[in-house]
């Protein structure tokens, strides 16, 4: 692959005794859309602010487009930024807000207004130029902030939870819009979010963070299908966990009962957590196959979620409770109702295994 556009090496950030970022290294490539995803306090915003130069890191280096920008003030870096609050200047109209970064660059007035027009067209706000931010809806304000950040054609676009202040419908719509815009302009973009759906739908690559370290970097598919750690597995999507111990190769013991899984060369007797997604749990009517991974489950409750039903099952054999997603039709066919019994299979290839003693 080509040289990274943004290269972060061994970044650490301390606030007094507290370490907000610990030895972060990361590369972002030209034109890429990267999401920093994690729970609040994981350090994702701190990392973004370090990249922007707003809160400088304690140690470590950042290079952008081949130049070391580690200690540069924000005004000497090349980025545009959109904050959760949008930070639109309330006393300036939409067009003045967008033109804010253009005016003093000695560009001629008609050039500025042409550029502003172009940007407002881009974010579909051409008819709102003379309005003040307070007269716009949240989604519109969001787009003005985006246009303002893009006005100076920065090499890097930073988005700090840009959609969090919006309601669900607008958020889903803007997600697609921002992603489309980013693809068209091919501007390298980093977005901070705590919303996994946002990250999964928008990002080319996701950086999952927790407690100041990177848990995993990968495409949305990789992150969802092969979470690298128990944290990622739990944070992204819904996951069932079962405590077990590794037994002979290819087997784990759960409450003393064997279960086939890929044990990945782990030595025997180690405590592990087995993870399987609800949609990977298979339910069927009593045709015993004699597989290690099949048992009888008793339906405890059903949660109707529209297109599918989330079934909570009690598995006597492994003394555990787990959730399975089945389509509404399937739920009918299996006559699932509280108290009913159903055969449950946990396909070995769908079970991931996390060592507990790390």
């Amino acid at each position, binding site marked *: 692959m080509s040289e990274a556009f943004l290269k972060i090496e061994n970044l650490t950030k301390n606030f007094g005794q507290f370490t907000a970022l610990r030895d972060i290294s990361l590369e972002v490539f030209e034109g890429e859309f990267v999401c920093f995803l994690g729970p609040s306090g994981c350090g994702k915003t701190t990392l973004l602010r370090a990249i922007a130069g707003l809160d400088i890191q304690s140690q470590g280096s950042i290079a952008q487009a081949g130049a070391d920008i580690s200690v540069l003030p924000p005004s000497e870096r090349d980025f545009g930024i959109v904050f959760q609050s949008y930070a639109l200047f*309330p006393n300036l109209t939409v067009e003045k807000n967008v033109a*804010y970064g253009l005016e003093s660059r000695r560009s001629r007035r008609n050039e500025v207004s042409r550029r502003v027009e172009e940007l407002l067209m881009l974010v579909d706000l051409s008819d709102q130029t003379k309005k003040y931010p307070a007269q716009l809806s949240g989604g519109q304000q969001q787009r003005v902030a985006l246009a303002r950040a893009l006005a100076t054609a920065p090499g890097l676009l930073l988005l700090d939870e840009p959609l969090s202040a919006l309601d669900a419908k607008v958020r889903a719509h803007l997600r697609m819009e921002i992603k489309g815009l980013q693809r068209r302009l091919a501007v390298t973009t980093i977005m901070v979010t705590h919303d996994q759906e946002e990250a999964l739908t928008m990002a080319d690559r996701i950086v999952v963070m927790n407690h100041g370290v990177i848990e995993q970097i990968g495409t949305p598919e990789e992150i969802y299908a092969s979470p690298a750690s128990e944290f990622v597995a739990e944070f992204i999507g819904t996951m069932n966990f079962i405590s077990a111990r590794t037994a002979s190769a290819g087997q784990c013991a759960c409450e003393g009962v064997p279960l086939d899984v890929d044990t990945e060369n782990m030595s025997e007797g180690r405590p592990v957590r087995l993870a399987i997604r609800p949609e990977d749990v298979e339910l069927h009517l009593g045709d015993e196959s004699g597989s290690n991974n099949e048992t009888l489950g008793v339906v405890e409750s059903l949660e109707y979620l529209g297109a599918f039903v989330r079934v909570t099952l009690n598995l006597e054999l492994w003394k555990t409770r787990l959730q399975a997603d089945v389509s509404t039709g399937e739920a009918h066919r299996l006559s699932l109702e509280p108290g009913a019994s159903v055969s449950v299979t946990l396909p070995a290839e769908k079970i991931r295994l996390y060592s507990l003693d790390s």
Partner: protein
Amino acid sequence: MTAKGVAISTTGPMLRRKSSSDDRAMRLFVLVIGVYLIVALAFPLYAMLSKSTLDSKGGFVGLENYLAYFNTPSLVYSIQNSLFIGFVTTSITVTIAFVLAYALTRSRMPGKAVFKTVAMIPILVPSLLPGIALIYLFGRQGLINELLFGHDIYGPIGIVIAEVFFTLPHALIIIITALSIADARLYEAATALRAGSARIFFTVTLPGVRYGLISAAFVVFTLSVTDFGAPKVIGGDFNVLATDIYKQVIGQQNFEMGAVVSVVLLIPAGLAFVVDRIVQKKQIALLSARAVPLEPSPDKKFDNLMLVYSIVVSIFIVGILGVCQFAALVKFYPYNLSLGLSNYQFDLMDGGGWASYFNSIEMASYTAVFGTILVFSGAYLVEKGQGLGPIRGTFQLLAMLPMAIPGLVLGLAYIFFFNSPSNPLNFLYHTMAILVISTITHFYTVSHLTATTALKQMDAQFESVAASLKQPFYRTFLRVTVPVCTPAILDISIYLFVNAMTTVSAVVFLYSPHTTLASVAVLNMDDAGDIAPAAAMGMMIFYTAAGVKILHYLLSRGVESRTQAWRVSVAK
């Protein structure tokens, strides 16, 4: 590897951001304003402290002056007197203010706006004025002096009445604020739990305003202990610390003893200040963003009671003012009660004549203009400046300090510092500039807090956005911060103007024959026995201050309507 240059190791030194031109400019400005505060506040105070340890020839005598002070019974007696005035005034003012604030926030009586405006009037007059009115009412030839049943108005009774008048608006503002942040849901919950109105009052209302009450009590205590105007006019032989300073300096030219008394006066003022700061923080913590505002429900009996009460308080305030106006117009009380403007012929009296009045307007205008620029810029730099760290803390402390320094003490400190022949700033002494500087400094804290509050309400990311757009900070300051904060900026300038018009304490030591001021003229004319002209000049100050307030009101309304389109969201 294209990232080069910086050697990385996890144990290496902390990285520091390279300064941008903005950072350097901001640091320079902070430094300028910081130096102002050091020169206008810290140095003079130091000069005063050191003066209190010197003899009249300038030799160091350690605590000898303090020993002399505490061995002079007449001087020590003033401590007791000051504390007595402080405690009595505080209990009366806070009680009156609480009930009035309660009437204004929790009743549905008519005319609330009028009563509130009337209660604010005392802010617009020098604290000398109520004393003058009291002389006309209860003095030896007073209009209704039989109401005192033979007691003398000159002394503690007069001082306390005048201080109650003078401190009422300050207490009222604080308590109204405390009462209006009440959460209606608490009252609904209490009512749903069938608590009676008395029980609700003691379990919900009072606890909710306790910090407001404490804060109001300390403000009133400080004001009444450090005030100089009322005891000067109506104190008679009842000496307090503030008048002692004045007598030591102006009367006996004993500057060292003046410094000692000043230090003594700093103690209660400083203590009250510290407690108030602690309480203020707790008050803020009580503020819940989701509180539902309380709408008082109508209660005929209660509303009428509150109405009568508010009318009585208003009569007290308007009455004091009315008597002053009467005194100013009566030709020769009590012998010739016909009305005329002869008392306005200030040029025939001591005190500097009409020139004092115009000097005051000039001084107040300079104070308002330069003070607002200085205070607002200072608050902006401290709030928004990047990487100022310890400088910010020091600045904040210096900005809060003036609140704890009584005006007289500040004025005396200025004499010691600026009048010293070895001081290169000596040329400022006896100029208009030193009056402006002392007044800005004297009223710095409240202005600074107003500016800080307004700035804190602005989106913290404006500066980050501007930096990312490579705009210099002053552009955002002028194009965004100042327009958005215009209401606060207007508030600050009016506050400074009105206080510059009415203040006596700091400037009384600093004026010169060609920079006499209206408020000082009131003092000097009263001193010379020209009480009626003193009242007339006092009323001139009132009309000017009131006029400026009305102008402020109209201006604010204008700004509001012009910026309504974008202010909708900012106002929240």
